[in-house]
């Protein structure tokens, strides 16, 4: 019977019910969306580094990790990289040749990391193609095309289509010189990166060195970062003679920011929940004040105080549940919408709008959070009702009825 009464009460005072409902909905939506934004912002930063050059997992030989000599190539590298690209978690694999050498122009020389790639495969693994500001991605120069960073081109005094001479120690340790032509110039957020990394076709390197198609590095892009841990363990076991690293090993500082993020998130959620708690409590207090006369009458005609208390609690529980469901729906929808379109961060930060490239944040929310947050919010809503309810049942019916409502 209380249930029926509670239900009727809810509909009797639509405005009040609506406010509490909306409060819960908003609270849940806020919780879900803000966590999604936080995780998304970290994810975006990590992803842009992973996409630019880190990749999810990298494989080298153990010797190569100590000294990056081209002679430390991965035995049977091409077969291994084909095997890995067949895994369903893997989006694609880039098998690269890595050489530390020099790049020279008529006016200057610089030490560089020469990265020999298969341009078509590389496109699926890293996003260097998107950073091209001049020229094209391996299109337009037939002989020995090379992609260089803007900072390096400036330092060497070179431009698009200029000749650049690379010198390096080939596989057989002889010093080799070869002329390349700049087919494209790229620019990333990291000028040190632009200054040090140049990209050429593996096939051109093999021709210059007159060598077998050896590779020094296998870079792996997964279909989703969800697969990271499992794939990493799998590959580590399978290729135990090689050195398998995930981006967490390669860039430990990125992982630290994740831990920091979790703490930040907990704190902010705490604040939002507290704000919600107070907000709802206040609203309910106000509302109870409004219904003082009504409750006074109920108690005066014999309703036990405990039942009045339960009545209010049930009303709140019903509202919280509905609020929870709607909030979750709203949250899911907005997260899904923005995870597709992305939020342009330069609207919020001057520092970022100075950058040439737009920085887009894609909110992301692992499934686990939906359940946790919804439960937390609903509980908060119910808790918020406790104090006002207690205050109510302490009423003296006579005074209550006489209240000028």
């Amino acid at each position, binding site marked *: 019977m209380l249930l029926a009464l509670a239900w009727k009460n809810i509909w009797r005072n639509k405005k009040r019910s609506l406010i509490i409902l909306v409060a819960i909905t908003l609270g849940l939506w806020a919780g879900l969306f803000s966590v999604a934004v936080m995780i998304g912002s970290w994810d975006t930063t990590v992803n842009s580094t992973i996409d630019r050059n880190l990749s999810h997992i990298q494989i080298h030989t153990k010797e190569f990790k100590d000294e990056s000599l081209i002679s430390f190539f991965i035995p049977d590298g091409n077969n291994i990289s084909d095997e890995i690209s067949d895994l369903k978690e893997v989006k694609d694999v880039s098998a690269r040749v890595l050489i*530390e*050498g*020099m790049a*020279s*122009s*008529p*006016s200057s*020389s*610089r*030490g560089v990391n020469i990265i020999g790639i298969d341009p078509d495969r590389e496109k699926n693994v890293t996003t260097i193609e998107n950073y091209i500001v001049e020229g094209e991605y391996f299109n337009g120069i037939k*002989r020995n095309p090379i992609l260089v960073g803007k900072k390096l081109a400036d330092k060497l005094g070179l431009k698009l289509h*200029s*000749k*650049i*001479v*690379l*010198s*390096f*120690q080939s596989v057989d340790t*002889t*010093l*080799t*010189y*070869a*002329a390349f032509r700049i087919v494209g110039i790229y620019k990333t957020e990291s000028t040190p990166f632009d200054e040090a990394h140049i990209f050429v076709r593996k096939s051109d390197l093999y021709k210059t060195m007159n060598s077998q198609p050896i590779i020094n590095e296998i870079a792996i892009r997964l279909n989703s970062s969800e697969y990271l841990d499992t794939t990493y363990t799998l590959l580590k076991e399978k290729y135990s003679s090689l050195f398998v690293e995930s981006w967490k090993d390669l860039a430990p500082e990125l992982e630290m920011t994740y831990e920091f993020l979790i703490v930040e998130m907990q704190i902010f959620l705490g604040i939002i929940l507290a704000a919600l708690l107070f907000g709802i409590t206040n609203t309910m207090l106000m509302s109870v004040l409004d219904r003082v006369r009504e409750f006074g009458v109920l108690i005066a005609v014999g309703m036990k105080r405990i039942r009045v208390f339960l009545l209010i609690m049930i009303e709140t529980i019903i509202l919280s549940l509905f609020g929870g469901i709607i909030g979750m729906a709203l949250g899911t929808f907005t997260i899904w919408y923005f995870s597709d379109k992305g939020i342009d961060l330069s609207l919020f930060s001057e520092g970022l709008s100075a950058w040439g490239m737009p920085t887009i944040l894609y909110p992301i929310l692992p499934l686990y959070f939906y359940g946790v947050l919804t439960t937390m919010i609903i509980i908060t809503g119910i808790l918020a009702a406790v104090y006002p309810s207690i205050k109510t049942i302490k009423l003296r019916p006579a005074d209550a009825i006489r209240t000028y409502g």
Partner: protein
Amino acid sequence: MIKQKMKKIFPIITLVIFLTSILTAQDAKEIIKKSDELIKSESSYAEVSMTIIKTDWSRTVGMKMWALEPDYAIIYITEPARDKGSVTLKRKKEVWNWIPTAQKVIKIPPSMMLQSWMGSDFTNDDLVKESSLINDYAHTIVGEEKFNGYDCYKIESIPKLDAGVVWGRLLTWISKEEYYQLKVEFYDEDDFIVKSYLGSDIKELGGRIIPAHWEMIPVDRPGEKTIFDYHGIEFNYNVNESFFSEQNMKRVR
């Protein structure tokens, strides 16, 4: 009638022009080769001063050089005092330095190969680079000019397609009679001159008559240059491969 004659003459003329150009090209290559041979020999010993001139400082390095072309060389520094006794050894494409103050031999790792040698504009890398002038370029005589009182061939050298050289083209002035390399101009691909070499002070050294004073002038850095002065050369010096060793680095004087 005339048309028929033209038809016959035309291919002949073309052939003549073609042959002449081949000859000229061969000539150009021969000329370059000869001027190169004039100042080199399979083995040699030389006493040289290198003067480095920058806008705000300058420094002179005295040295003794033993060389077994093209793979081996030892350079012993005689002055200034702080560098005296340092030795650089080149074996094929590798370079070692002997440091007397530390009593140690250090092999120059690849990443340091493009650091300057002795503070000059030359790098360790330049020491090991083969003079690719003859083979990496296609040479043609493009004119005749008088330079410094000498009648010279003006030869243009254009890098072959795959050659690992940074230049767009080179222009060399070689005296017709004596094959002295008097001037070389280095152009980038946009045809801007980047540096030039000048040879002068022709005198007798080691039995040959050659330029004893060489200047390397970077055109984009006015006021700077590197100067080599040869004080004595012995061509076809009696030395073999075993001389160019790590142990010997410590022993030469």
